[in-house]
């Protein structure tokens, strides 16, 4: 059994940097998943939430939450965004474990993420809270 990082990581643990550049094929998949008649016209820009989702997937992987036996519930999400990002534009995400506690056998973890463009200018932030139950197998 591999011990998932969420069991051992302490507050302040840093994640990434992750390349969360979104290529056109993933932007198209997003449009197929989310889009409809009421969707806004993004043109060559991305919905910021898509960049956040890409970073979240990498965080979950690094936390070891794809391990068999663990069940993860996405409990809360915060997002703020400073400017639009274009499809294919380089964006890098870095995360920091902001909270990690165990209550009644469940892990409650919050990871804060900062997104920067190729000039290292901050373009957005997010904070994700997850609840993890079960034992890694």
């Amino acid at each position, binding site marked *: 059994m591999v011990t998932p990082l969420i069991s051992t990581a302490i507050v302040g643990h840093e994640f990434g940097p992750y390349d969360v550049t979104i290529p056109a094929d993933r932007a198209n998949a997003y449009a197929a998943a989310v889009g409809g008649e009421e969707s806004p016209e993004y043109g060559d820009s991305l919905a910021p939430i898509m960049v956040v989702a890409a970073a979240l997937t990498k965080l979950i992987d690094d936390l070891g939450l794809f391990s068999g036996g663990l069940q993860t519930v996405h409990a809360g*999400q915060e997002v703020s965004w400073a400017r639009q990002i274009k499809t294919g534009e380089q964006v890098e995400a870095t995360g920091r474990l902001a909270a990690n506690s165990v209550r009644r056998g469940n892990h409650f973890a919050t990871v804060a993420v900062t997104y920067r463009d190729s000039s290292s200018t901050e373009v957005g932030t997010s904070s994700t809270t997850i609840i993890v139950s079960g034992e890694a197998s």
Partner: protein
Amino acid sequence: MSPERTQRTIGDSLRGFERKITQDRVDAYAEASGDHNPIHLDESYASTTQFGTRIAHGMLSLALVTEMLANEFSGTWHSGGRLKVRFSAPVFPGETVVTYGEITSIDESEGGLTVTCTIGCKKPDGTDAVAGRATVPLE
């Protein structure tokens, strides 16, 4: 500032919409996000979880809420908007959800006017799948 913007008042509803969350959408979202967790994709695995069947990604429901915000505040949501939500209940493939929002305050600061809204996404039984608050600058 456009007249449309200045006419916003507390209590105004945002233009929500319905969207059926099909398994095809969930599959596409897995491709888009890279999140291939079997709880979203593998029915035999999902049947062993607390939900008993596959569930949509919470971020998919949130993405619908942000589409509503992008429509409502087309010039500013992506440039200065912020939100904070809780995921209250899972959405199951086949369910139709409805996004909603209401302006609860309009505040003036150095940067101009900012609106605060309750936002969310309801399941067919009226319970919230996603619920929270957004703050968006006005043009």
